[in-house]
Structures are given as structure tokens and as C-alpha cells.
């Protein structure tokens, strides 16, 4: 049997949410949901895990802090100690207050850019990538539930039947 994908189109995020809840309760696995803006509360229903991007940003941030500190020590203390206005320059610790601003900026720089790059790669959104949403209307005003037969024991007919009872605007089947 060829694999089939079923798209149910909705006009309202709340209607989509209750439809998704109904499907999941009936034991159907929802592959994905496409929407023109974030639907709050959909993730736990369809089993999308919380992103770890925040943790990644923290890691990038402390990497930035450490690199900055290493740089200060090397440039200002070790390689060429500079006597500026008689300020203490013999140890990193004594000279540290003056380094706080750059340390902060570099932390932010690394956290923000590291996170942004990770985000783009994880989302597979990079320059030149083609749009992969199933229907162009999902970036305008429609909300789509995607169900695949390969994920589910039920056949496509049973899934379509179930979706018919959910105030869906259209239900489209496609083979792939």
C-alpha cells in the first residue's frame, strides 16, 4: 500500500487545536502542524518537545566570556602589559573592572550569533532553501494538520473520516 499524507485545513488556531486533540486522543499521530503564526499550546498536544536553543545560547555565551577573559589576560597582562594612568596591570584580577564592558559585549555577541546560527541550521532555513510548507496559504490565513499513514495503523480512509468531524475547511489526500 502506497503511503499517503492527509492535510486538513482549518481557519482558526483554536479549532485546529481541538481537532489535533481529538485525533491524538483517538490514537492518531499528528506528523506536523503548519500555521502563519505560533499556535500557543499545540506543542504538548502533538508531542513537540521543548527546544534546547536556550541552553545552546547559554553555552555560546559562557564560551564568549571565557574567550574574552583569555584574550584580556594574553593581550593586556601577559604579552604586553601596558601601564595606563598607573592602573594596576600586573594581574588579570586587579585589572578586571576595566574589562567588564568588553567581556559583557563579547558574551552577548557570541550568545546571540551562536544561537541565531544554530536556529537557522536546526530549522533548515538558510539562504536559497526552497519553501517546504504543504500549501502556500499556511503563511497567510490557513492552519494545516498533517497526518501520514506511515505513522499510523489506521488507513487513510479512517483518518479522513475522523478529520471530517472536526470543522475542517478542506481535507486533501496526497500520495508520496
Amino acid at each position, binding site marked *: 500500500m502506497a503511503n499517503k499524507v492527509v492535510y486538513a485545513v482549518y481557519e482558526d488556531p483554536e479549532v485546529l487545536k481541538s481537532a489535533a486533540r481529538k485525533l491524538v486522543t483517538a490514537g492518531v499521530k499528528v506528523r506536523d502542524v503548519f500555521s*502563519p503564526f505560533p499556535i500557543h499550546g499545540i506543542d504538548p498536544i502533538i508531542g*513537540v518537545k521543548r527546544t534546547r536553543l536556550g541552553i545552546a545560547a547559554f553555552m555560546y555565551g559562557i564560551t564568549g566570556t571565557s574567550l574574552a577573559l583569555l584574550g584580556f589576560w594574553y*593581550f593586556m597582562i601577559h604579552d604586553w602589559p601596558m601601564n595606563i594612568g598607573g592602573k594596576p596591570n600586573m594581574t588579570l584580577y586587579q585589572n578586571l573592572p576595566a574589562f567588564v564592558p568588553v567581556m559583557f559585549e563579547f558574551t552577548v*555577541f557570541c550568545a546571540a550569533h551562536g544561537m*541565531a546560527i544554530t536556529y*537557522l541550521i536546526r530549522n533548515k532555513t538558510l539562504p536559497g532553501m526552497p519553501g*517546504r510548507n504543504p500549501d502556500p496559504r499556511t503563511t497567510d490565513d490557513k492552519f494545516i494538520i498533517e497526518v501520514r499513514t506511515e505513522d499510523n495503523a489506521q488507513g487513510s480512509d479512517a483518518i479522513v473520516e475522523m478529520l471530517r468531524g472536526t470543522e475542517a475547511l478542506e481535507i486533501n489526500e496526497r500520495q508520496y
Partner: protein
Amino acid sequence: MHSESAIREPLILGHKTYHDITADIVGPIENKAPRAWYVLLTISSLIALYGIGCIMYLIGTGIGVWGLNKTVDWAWDITNFVWWVGIGHAGTLISAVLLLFRQRWRMAINRSAEAMTIFAVIMAATFPVIHMGRVWMAYWVLPLPNTFGSLWVNFNSPLLWDVFAISTYFTVSLVFWYIGLIPDFATIRDRVTTKGMKRAYSILSFGWTGNAKAWTRFEEVSLVLAGIATPLVFSVHSVVSMDFATSIVPGWHTTIFPPYFVSGAVFSGFAMVQTLLLVMRKVMKLESYITVKHVEYMNIVIIVTGSIVGVAYITELFISWYSGVEYESYAFINRATGPYWWSYWAMMTCNVVSPQVFWFKKLRTHLGFTFFMSIIVNIGMWFERFVIIVTSLHRDYLPSSWTLFHPSWVDVGIFVGTLGIFFTLYLLFARFFPVVALNEMKSILKMSGESYKQQQAQHHHH
């Protein structure tokens, strides 16, 4: 769904659907530009070209073509730098700080305010670079290995902190702005019909799909970037103020500079946002999204920050007397009564006195008056920087070297030129980019849209 208090005024007026939002914002990009756009673009790009010509003349000839002299060795260059950086602050404040405070009214204005931030920071960065004179050595500000030792840059110096602050600020704002733009570019990609536009927006949208995980990540990135951009925006203008505050020049050596500069920056930034948005909402027919309530909220920010600035001016004045340091006292007496008294009183009038009229609801909700005030505030804030820089320098410890500063035509040309470049970039943005964050507006439509709020209110009564 989260429903909003009925007392709050709607943020989207009229009976709009999700599709109407797309059509209203993307429509102007698809249609032919109005004639006024071409006229404005021509004027501003001619001014921009003149400014670029002046910059090239400056680089080719040397800093001597500016009106600087031995006593006043910073004048319009750094005044313009601080003015432009300050203007840039509103964009980040709106998109980051107001996001953390969950202020939904930011959503209609954050996109264009962030664009303004980016263009203003580009203009700001121009000045420290060209004031080096030999711009081809600008890379010397970076800690790169070199054949002088290696002799490293000085991490004790606020001027170097500024290099890091401004470059971090610029790149982080750019990334924050672009990440918000990606889903909206995808909306345009999926909507336009001509081949060229489809291709262009397809590249710009990076292949955005808008699936559940992508949106989760999107919201996480927005929140974390807002969280780190918030201290960043405060740090940037604090560092700019330390360029002055850590020196021992009377009038500059002041501990209140960081908060005072930051609130001044937000003050002038919001004024510039008003200048741009009041025109844009009219020309692009965005009255349903950028409402009078939005304008009023921004005017409230202007009066708050303007009052903080006013308190700072008066504190400065009081401390100069109370400190008992005669040089410090003289610096301030000279500001108010010396040869540059007119710039000091222009600053006081524009920044401290005139914004107080916004206590009147009639005036802060009057669009024409707001536009007028936004120009006044920006003039005032330019004079603030001029007062701080030039009047503190022109009479130093040695009366024999007292002098005045006269701007040359190159000073004026470059400043006016940056206005031209700024408006050119902004006009291009308004023509080709979604000027309102589509995805964010759609996400609040059913909470803060006028017709939906009315439905909820009726529902409540029954």
C-alpha cells in the same frame, strides 16, 4: 485562548481577518509605488550622494577640512555619532524591552523601529570611522596580531569598549530583525505572482515552513534575543557616555552620564520613530494597525524619558555648584551664559520644557502636533550632544587657548548627507519589506482586534 481585558483599547481597528492583514501589509509591496515615494527617494538619494561626496572629499583631503581646532578637537563628528546611536535605541527598546514586558502594542511598530535602529547605527558608525582620518587603518581598533610588537589595543579605554559595544549592537539588532522578518518574507513568497519577486522573496525567506517546531524555536529565539538585547541596549549608550564620563574634562566627568544618556537616547529614538511612522501610516494606509493609541503610548514614553533627561540636566547643574570645584562650576555657567548660551537654551526648551505639553491628552493624541514635537525633540537632542561636547571643550584650563567652533561646509555636508542616506535606506525598506510584523499582528488579532473585542464584550453581557 487568552482574552484581553475589555478596558484595554483595541490595537487593530476595524473588522480585519488574517487575510486582510496580509493584504494590507503586502499589498503596497506588490502594487506600484506611489509617485510621492519616487519623489522622496530622489530627494533623499541626491542628498545621500552629496554626503558621500563630502565623505570622499574628507578622506581624500584630511580631517583639516572640518572646523576642528586645537581646543575643540571633537565637535560635529562625535555629536552626530552620539545623536545617531541614540536614535537607534528606540528600535531595540521597542522590540526587546517591550517584548519582555509583554506590551502588545509594540507589535505594530517594532519592525519599522528596528529597521530605523539598524540604519541609524550604520550612520552612527560612519562618524567614528571617518574621524580617524586614515580610514583604511580602521582595522587597527581590533585586537589583531601586528608587526609593532605585537602592540595590542587598549582594553582599559572606553573608546575601545565602544568599538565592541557598537559592533555587537549593530550585528545583534540586525540578526534579531532578520529572524523576525523570515516568516513574513515567506508570506510574501507564497503570495506574489511575478517570477522575479517570487525568486527574490524565496531567497530572503530562507525556505521558511512555519511548522510547529519552527515556531517553537522562533519564539525561544525571540525571547532569548530580547533578554540579551535588553542589557545590551543599556550597555551601549552607557559605554558611549563613558567616552566622556571617564575623562577629566569639566562638564564630562560626571557619574550620572550613563543613565542620563540612555534615557536621552530612548527619548530621541522614540521621537524619530514618531517622525517616520506618522508619515508611513498615512502614506501606506496603516491607520488600522498603527493607531492613535500607539502614538499616545509612544508619547508617554517620550514624556517619561524627557522628564528623566530634565532631572539629569538639573542634577548636573546642581552638582557642579555643590561640588565646589570651580572648573566644574564654570563649565556649567559657561554653558548657560557663555557664547554658546543659545545652544544650551535650545536644548533646555526642546528637551525639558516642550515635551511636558504631552501631559494634555488632547495634545498627545493629536497626530499633527506629535509630528511637530518629534522634530523639536530631535533638534533638542542634537543640541544636547553639541552642548556637552563643544561647550565643554571650547574653554579649557588655559584661557589663552579659548576658542570657538565654526562648522565648515564639509561638517554640514556630511551630517545632512547621513540624513539623506538614512531616509534613502528607510524608503527602500518601506517599499520592499513588510513594514509591520505580519505574524505578530495575526497572533494578537483575536485578542486585541476591535471587532473581536466587541464580540467578546457582547458575549460577556449576555
